[in-house]
C-alpha cells in the first residue's frame, strides 16, 4: 500500500521535474519474473525506470496512466545486466612483466573497439578490464561497454590491483618488496614529520625565548641557557627555514598502490595456477592484512580443490570459469566452482575465455555447472552482484534495486536453459540490444 502511494506521489512529481524529457523520462517494464539478486525472485514484477536508474521495483505495482509501459511476453525474465569483472575485451598491447602496480587499465581503453557491442550482445553491461602483463601489471577499471571517450565509459577506476603469483622467488618477492618499499617510505615520512614538528616547536620557543631574554638578563643560569638556545637557533637558521605548512615527502605511484592496499582502499586480485601458489601467496603476504580475491583458471587441469577448504575458511572471493574440470590424472569430472562455493568462498564467475563465443555462451556454460550441482542463486549472484562487489561498484550495479543503474538483461526463459536467448539489453535506461518493443 505504501509503495503504491509513494509511486503515485512520485509520478505526480515527475512531469514537473522533467518537463523537457517527456519520452526519456519514466518507463515501466512489466515482466512475469525478475531475478533481483539482492531480494530473490520476484513474480509479476514492475520495474520503473527514470533517467537511467531504477526508481522503483515491486510486485504488481499499479502504473499511472501516461507512463509508457513495456509488457514483456509471458515466460520472459528480467535479470540485472551481467558483470564480467575480468576481461580484456577491446584492449590490446603488451604489459610489463615485473612490478608496475601504478599502471592503469583505464589509460589504455579503446572506446571504438568492436568488442564492446559484442559484449553487450552477450548481456554484459559492466566489464572489469585489467591491464596486460605478468607480475603485478597494474590496476583494473570498471567500464560500461559503450561510450565515445574512455572517460564516458569508466564506471569506476582502481577497482582492483592485478597480481600474478607463481611459486617462484621473484614472484613472491614482488609482494614483499612492495610492502617493504612502503615501510621505508612511511619511516622516512615519519622522520620528516618529526623533524618538521621539532622545527615548528623551536620556532615557537625562539619567539618565547627572545621575549624572555629582554625580561631576565641578570640571571646567570638563564644566560647560559639562552646561549645554548642561540646556538641551536643558529643551527636551525643554517639548515633552512622550515615551512609553516607541512609538506609530505612525495609518494611515488608504485608505492601508493601498496599504501592503498594496506589502507584497504584497493583490493588485490591474485591470479594463481595451482594449490601451491595459494600457500606461497599467503607466505609472501605474511602478516600483511589486505583485501584480496583469488583468480583461479579452471580451464586447465588444476589441483585447487586440495586447498578449497582453506580458501573457503577465509571467505574470500574466487574468480573462476563455469566449467567442469577433470581430476588430475583421471577422467573424473569435478565441479570445482561448486566445491569452492560450498567450502565458503564467494563465487565470482567469468566467461570461459575472452572470445565473443565464450561471452555469448556464458549463461549456458553457467547452466552446465548449475545442472552439475552449483546452487542456482549463487550462480546468478556470481555473474552480477558478486563481481560488482569485487570491483566495489555494488552501489550502482549488480542487482535490481531502487536507485541502481537500469542495467537489465531480458531473456525469454530460464537463463540457464540452453534454448533460452537474450531478447534485450538495457544499459542505464536505454535499450542497447534487442527488439523489445518500446
Amino acid at each position, binding site marked *: 500500500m505504501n509503495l503504491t502511494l509513494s509511486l503515485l506521489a512520485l509520478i505526480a512529481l515527475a512531469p514537473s521535474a522533467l518537463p523537457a524529457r517527456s519520452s526519456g523520462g519514466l518507463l515501466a517494464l512489466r515482466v512475469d519474473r525478475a531475478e533481483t539478486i539482492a531480494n530473490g525472485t520476484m513474480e509479476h514484477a514492475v520495474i520503473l525506470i527514470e533517467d537511467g536508474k531504477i526508481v522503483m521495483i515491486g510486485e504488481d505495482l499499479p502504473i499511472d496512466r501516461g507512463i509508457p509501459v513495456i509488457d514483456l511476453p509471458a515466460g520472459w525474465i528480467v535479470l540485472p545486466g551481467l558483470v564480467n569483472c575480468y576481461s580484456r575485451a577491446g584492449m590490446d598491447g603488451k604489459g610489463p612483466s615485473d612490478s608496475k602496480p601504478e599502471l592503469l587499465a583505464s589509460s589504455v581503453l579503446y572506446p571504438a573497439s568492436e568488442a564492446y557491442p559484442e559484449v553487450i550482445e552477450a548481456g554484459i553491461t559492466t566489464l572489469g578490464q585489467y591491464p596486460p602483463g605478468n607480475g603485478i601489471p597494474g590496476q583494473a577499471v570498471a567500464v560500461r561497454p559503450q561510450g565515445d571517450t574512455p572517460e564516458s565509459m569508466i564506471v569506476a577506476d582502481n577497482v582492483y590491483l592485478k597480481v600474478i603469483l607463481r*611459486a617462484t*622467488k621473484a614472484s*613472491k618477492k614482488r609482494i614483499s618488496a612492495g610492502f617493504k618499499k612502503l615501510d621505508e617510505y612511511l619511516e622516512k615520512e615519519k622522520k620528516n614529520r618529526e623533524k618538521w614538528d621539532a622545527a615548528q616547536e623551536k620556532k615557537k620557543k625562539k619567539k618565547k625565548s627572545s621575549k624572555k631574554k629582554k625580561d631576565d638578563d641578570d640571571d646567570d643560569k638563564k644566560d647560559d641557557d639562552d646561549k645554548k638556545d642561540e646556538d641551536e637557533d643558529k643551527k636551525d637558521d643554517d639548515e633552512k627555514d622550515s615551512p609553516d605548512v607541512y609538506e609530505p615527502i612525495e609518494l611515488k605511484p608504485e608505492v601508493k598502490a601498496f599504501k592503498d592496499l594496506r589502507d584497504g582502499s584497493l583490493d588485490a586480485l591474485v591470479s594463481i595456477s595451482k594449490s*601451491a601458489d595459494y600457500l606461497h601467496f599467503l607466505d609472501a603476504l605474511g602478516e600483511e592484512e589486505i583485501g584480496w580475491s583469488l583468480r583461479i583458471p579452471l580451464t586447465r587441469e588444476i589441483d585447487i580443490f586440495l586447498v578449497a577448504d582453506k580458501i573457503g575458511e577465509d571467505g574470500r572471493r574466487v574468480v573462476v570459469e563455469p566449467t567442469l574440470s577433470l581430476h588430475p*590424472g583421471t577422467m573424473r569430472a569435478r565441479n570445482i566452482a561448486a566445491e569452492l562455493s560450498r567450502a565458503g568462498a564467494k563465487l565470482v564467475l567469468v566467461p570461459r575465455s575472452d572470445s565473443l563465443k565464450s561471452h555469448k555462451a556464458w549463461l549456458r556454460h553457467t547452466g552446465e555447472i548449475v545442472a552439475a550441482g552449483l546452487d542456482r542463486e549463487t550462480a546468478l549472484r556470481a555473474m552480477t552482484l558478486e563481481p560488482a562487489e569485487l570491483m566495489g561498484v555494488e552501489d550502482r550495479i549488480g542487482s535490481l534495486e531502487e536507485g541502481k543503474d537500469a542495467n537489465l538483461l531480458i531473456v525469454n526463459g530460464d537463463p540457464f536453459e540452453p534454448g533460452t536467448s537474450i531478447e534485450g539489453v538495457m544499459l542505464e535506461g536505454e535499450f542497447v540490444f534487442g527488439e523489445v518493443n518500446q
Partner: protein
Amino acid sequence: MRYPIEPKAWIATLFALLVAAPASAYWTPGDDDKKSSEDAEDAEADEEDEEEQERWFAAVGGDVHDGSGGVLRGATLLAKNGKIEEIGYDLYIPEDTETLDVSGYQIWPGLVSAASSGLFGGSSALEDTVDPFNRSMVLALGSGITSAVQSNQAGKLKRGEIEGIVMTPKVFTPFSYKNSDPRTKTGLEKKLAEASAYRREYMQWEEDVKKDKDLKAPSKKGIDGSTLEVLAGTTWAKFAADSRTDLLGIARLAQRYGFRPVIEGCTEGWTVADELGRAGAFAIMTPRGRKTKSERLVRDGGSSIENAAILHGAGVQIAIVPATTSISLNGIVGRDMMHLPVEAGFAIRGGLPEQAALDAITRVPARLMRVEHRVGSLEVGKDCDLIITDGDVLHYQTFVQWAVVEGKVVYNKEEELFFAHIRPRPEAAFAPEAKLDAGETLEPDDQEASSEEEESGEDDSDDGDDDGDDDER
C-alpha cells in the same frame, strides 16, 4: 592467614552476604583469596590452551624397526607435535590422538635420499618454489621417502604445507677433480692450499691476539668461502667421480687437507676401498650402475656388484640413490626414485649387510644432510617421520601402506590412485568397525600378528589373549 578488614569492606562484605544466597555462605572476604582462585582458573585455562595446541599421533600394534637394528614387536609409537614421544608397550594414549591401527604391519624410519630432483615440485630454492601437492611428492612418499636433498638443500616432504620444508639450507660444496682435466686438479689444490693457509694464519692470530690486542686478523681476500666451509666442516665437499684414478686423487687430497669427501658415483671405489676408507669418505652410489673396465688399464676396474659391500667393509659410509633421482614414469621401470629401497636391496645381493643397506637410505644420508638428530631412525625426541609397510622395507614386494611426516599421515596407499588396486589391504585393517577408546587396541585378527605378540612375551590382557570374546563389550 587473616587480614584486617577495613570497615567499608566489612560492610560491603556483610551486604554481599545478605544479598547473595546460601551459595556464598562459605565465601570469605579478602581480595587475596579471590585473586588466588582467579589465578588458578587462569592456570587451568592456560593448560587447556596448551593441550589444544598439542597434536598427538599414535601408530598402534606394529613391529617397530627403529632403524638401528632394534625391533619391538607389536609395539606402539606415540608422537607429540611431530616428535616421537615414546615407543613401547601399554602406553597411555591421550584423548584426541590420531591413532592408526597398524597391527600386522611394520614401522620403519622414513627413507632419506641423498640426491633427488623434482620431488618438491620446484627446481630452485625450496622454500619459494615447493609445490607440496605435486604428484612426484605423493609418489615419493608412497615409495617411503620422507626427506631428500634437492637443489643442494635438505628438505622434508611435508605434503600440503610449505612451512618448515627446508631442514638444511646448504648441504654440499661441489668440487671438481678430474684426472682428464688437469686444470680442475690444480685449481682445486690451489683453493685448498690457500684456504688451509688462511686457517692456519687465523688460528695463529687467535693465539697472538690474546697477547697483543691490536693485531689485525688475517685478510680473507682471495680465499674461497666455500672451500673454507669445507675445511671448517660446515658443508661437505662433493665430488662426482667414478674412475679409480680420480678416486685415489680425491682420497689423497682429502687426507692432505683434512676433510671428508663425499663422492657421487664411486663405481670403481671397490678397487681403492682402503684409500677411501682411510680418507673417511662418503659414497653416494647406485649399486645397479654399470661401467665397463677401461681396456687400457691393467688393474681392476669397472663396476662390481660387490662395490657397496667392499666399500662398507673398508669403512666408507654408503648412501644409496637410484640411477634416476627423480620420479620417472617413462622408460624402464625400477630405475627411478620410486625404487630407492630396491636399489639398496640390490647391494645386499653383493654382500652388503642388511643393516648397512638400510643405513644407506636412512641414517647415512641423514648424516650427510646434518639432520641425523631429527631423521633417519626412530628414537624418542626425533621427528616422527615413518613409514608403515606390509613387509621388510628392503624387500621388492613390500609396499608402503602409510607414510607419516612429523606426526601427520601424508600418504595412505588405499586413498591414493596409484597402488590402491595392487594387493589391497584387508578391509578390517584400514576401516576398523569398532570405535576404540584411547589406549585400547584392536583385536589382532591376523594370526601372524598375534603369534608375534606372544613371542614378545607381553602379558597384555587386551592384546595377548587369543579367544578374544570376553573383550567385546
